[in-house]
C-alpha cells in the first residue's frame, strides 16, 4: 500500500536507531525488523528530528536552520516508510503485529535467558571445544571423518534416513544458536530455506544486527559455529576415550557418533566458504566495514560479461568506496569459489547421483515389485532427487518472487 506523506505528517520511528558507520555515513534502522538504510549526516539528523515528534515540515525547517541547506524532507520521509523503517504515526499497531508475525518464535526468547550462553566464559568454552577436538584429531587420525561414516546401518535407506534426520536436527540447533545470540542482544530473527550456489541451506536472517555497532555482531554471526564445535567435541571425545580403551560404549553408538562427526565437520567446513555468504563471510564483511560486499562483487564481475539492468547499475554507482575497494581482492576468491563449485559438482555430486540413481533404478527394475527391496529403491530415488533438485527448486522460487 502506498503511504501518502505530506508536510504535516508525523512518523512513528519507535525502536529506530541511528548509528554513525563512517564519515558522512550513518546506519538508520530498526533492529527488531532488520530493515535499515545508510544515509548521509543530514539524513541522520532528519531522522532524529522526526523521531523526536516533529512534523515533516518542522523537521525540514530545523535542518535548514542548522545547515543552511533546503532539503526535500517529504520525499526522504516517504523513502523511510517505503524501506519499512518508519510508519505513519496514525497506524503503528498494525505494522507491529505484521513485524512480530515474521519472526522465528525461538528468536523471541527473553534476552536474560540466553545471555549466559554468549558471555566470555561461554566463548572460552566454545573455543576450548574446538581446540580439544583438533588435538584429538591430531593424536588419533582414525577419528577424522570419512564418507563411509554415513553408513551407520547396512541398509542404505535407513542410514540415509537417520543421517538426514540427525543433520536436519543439528542444522536447526545451529540456526537456533544464531537466533539465541541475536535475542541476547535484542535482535529477533527469521528462519528461511535458501540456497548457496548448488547447496540448499537453512538460514537465520539477522539483518537487524546491521543497525548495531560491529563489535556486537560477531557473537550472533559466530554462534552457529560455536554450538557446532560443542557438538563436534561431544561426538569426538567419547570415541577418543573408547579407542584408547578407557571406556566401553555400544558399537552402534560409536558408529552414530562417527556420523555426527562427519556431519559437523562438513558443516564447519562449509561455513568457511566465505564466497557462499556463509557465517565467515558475515564476519569478514563486518571486519572490513563493508555493507554490501557480495552484491557489489557479483555485479562488478557480471558487468564484465553482460550489460547490467538499470537497478543493478544503480547499486554499483551508489556502492560505498570500501565495498568497491575490498571487492577488488574478494572477487578473486569469488571466482575461485565458482570454479571450485563446478569442479565439486562434476567430481562428487554428479558421480554420486549417477551411482545412487543407477542403483535405485536397478533395484526398482529387478527386485520383486512391492517387495521391501523395491520400496527401498523407490525411497532412495526420492531422496536423491530431493538432494539434487532442491537447490533448483529454491532458485525457481526466488526468481518467481523477484518477478512479482
Amino acid at each position, binding site marked *: 500500500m502506498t503511504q501518502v506523506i505530506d508536510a504535516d505528517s508525523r512518523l512513528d520511528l519507535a525502536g529506530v536507531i541511528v548509528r554513525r558507520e563512517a564519515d558522512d555515513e550513518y546506519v538508520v534502522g530498526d533492529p527488531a525488523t532488520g530493515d535499515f538504510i545508510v544515509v548521509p549526516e543530514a539524513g541522520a539528523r532528519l531522522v532524529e528530528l522526526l523521531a523526536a515528534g516533529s512534523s515533516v515540515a518542522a523537521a525540514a525547517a530545523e535542518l535548514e536552520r542548522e545547515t543552511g541547506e533546503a532539503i526535500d524532507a517529504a520525499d526522504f520521509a516517504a523513502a523511510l516508510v517505503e524501506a519499512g523503517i518508519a510508519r505513519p504515526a496514525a497506524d503503528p499497531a498494525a505494522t507491529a503485529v505484521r513485524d512480530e508475525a515474521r519472526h522465528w518464535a525461538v528468536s523471541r526468547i527473553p534476552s536474560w535467558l540466553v545471555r549466559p550462553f554468549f558471555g566470555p566464559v561461554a566463548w572460552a568454552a566454545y573455543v576450548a571445544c574446538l581446540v580439544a577436538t583438533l588435538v584429538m584429531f591430531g593424536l588419533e587420525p*582414525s577419528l577424522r571423518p*570419512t564418507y*563411509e*561414516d554415513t*553408513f*551407520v546401518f*547396512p*541398509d*542404505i535407506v535407513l*542410514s540415509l534416513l537417520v543421517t538426514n534426520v540427525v543433520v536436519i536436527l543439528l542444522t536447526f540447533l545451529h540456526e537456533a544458536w544464531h537466533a539465541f545470540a541475536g535475542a541476547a542482544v535484542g535482535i529477533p530473527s527469521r528462519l528461511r530455506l535458501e540456497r548457496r550456489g548448488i547447496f540448499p541451506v537453512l538460514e537465520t536472517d539477522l539483518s537487524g544486527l546491521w543497525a548495531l555497532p560491529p563489535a556486537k555482531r560477531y557473537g550472533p554471526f559466530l554462534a552457529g559455529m560455536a554450538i557446532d564445535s560443542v557438538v563436534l567435541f561431544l561426538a569426538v571425545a567419547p570415541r577418543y576415550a*573408547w*579407542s584408547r*580403551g578407557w571406556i566401553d560404549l555400544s*558399537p552402534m553408538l*560409536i*558408529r552414530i557418533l562417527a556420523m555426527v562427526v562427519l556431519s559437523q565437520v562438513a558443516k564447519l*567446513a*562449509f561455513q*568457511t*566458504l*566465505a*564466497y557462499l555468504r556463509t557465517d*565467515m*563471510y558475515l*564476519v*569478514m564483511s563486518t*571486519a*572490513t*566495514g563493508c555493507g554490501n560486499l557480495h552484491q557489489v562483487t557479483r555485479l562488478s564481475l557480471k558487468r564484465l560479461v553482460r550489460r547490467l539492468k538499470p537497478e543493478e547499475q544503480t547499486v554499483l554507482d551508489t556502492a560505498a568506496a570500501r565495498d568497491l575497494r*575490498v571487492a577488488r*581482492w*574478494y572477487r578473486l*576468491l569469488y571466482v*575461485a*569459489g565458482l570454479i*571450485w563449485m563446478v569442479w*565439486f559438482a562434476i*567430481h562428487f555430486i554428479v558421480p554420486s547421483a549417477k551411482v545412487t540413481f543407477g*542403483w535405485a533404478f*536397478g*533395484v526398482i*527394475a*529387478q*527386485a520383486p515389485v512391492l517387495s521391501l*527391496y*523395491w520400496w*527401498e*529403491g523407490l525411497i532412495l530415488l526420492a531422496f536423491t532427487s530431493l538432494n539434487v533438485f532442491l537447490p533448483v527448486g529454491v532458485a525457481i522460487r526466488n526468481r518467481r518472487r523477484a518477478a512479482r
Partner: protein
Amino acid sequence: MRQRAGLLVGILVTTLSVITMSSFAFGVLLGQFTDREALPCNEVPGTPQPFEGNRHLAYSNAPHDPYRTDPPTSGPHSPRVVIPGIYRSPIPPELQVHILEHGHVLLQYAPGTSPADIDRLERVGRRHPRDVVVAPHPTLSTGIALTAWQRLQKSPTIDADAIESFVTKVAGRYDHQWRNGATDCLTS
C-alpha cells in the same frame, strides 16, 4: 587500526576458504605420500584365493552362485554397506564380500568363543577402527577366520601377533582394484 584488523580477518577468512576448497586435493596428495609399495607375495600373511567375480547384486537377496570358501573372499555381493567397526550379530556373506571390496579386513570368530576372547578380538577392532570389522560367524566350527579380498587365514586359536600382522599387512592392498603394486598372488 580497525582497517588493519579488518584486513587481517579478511586474509584469515580467505585462507580458510582456500584450505577448505583445496582440502580434497590436499587429501589426495597426502594419501600419495603415505602410500607404501605393496609387500611381495611371500611376505603377505594368509592364503591367496581365486577370483570369484566382483559384480553387485541388483538387490540384497538376489540369487547367485555359491561362494567357494567360507567365509567368502570375493564374488557377487550386496549393494548394501557395512563400515569397519564392531558387530555383535553375524554379517551375511554377501555383505562380507562388499566389506572386503573396500579394502577392509574381516575378523570373525566361531560360536562359543569366550567373552574374554571376544573382548580381546574387539580390542583389535578398537585399535584399527578404519580397517577392521569384528563379528561372529555362525558357520565357523572353531577359532577365528581373517579374510581380505582374495585372502583367507583361519586359526583354531587366537594368536594376537598373527592377527596384528594380517591386519597391518593385508588391509588396503585392494580397494576396488589392486593398489600400490599389490597382486592376487595367484597370477604372474
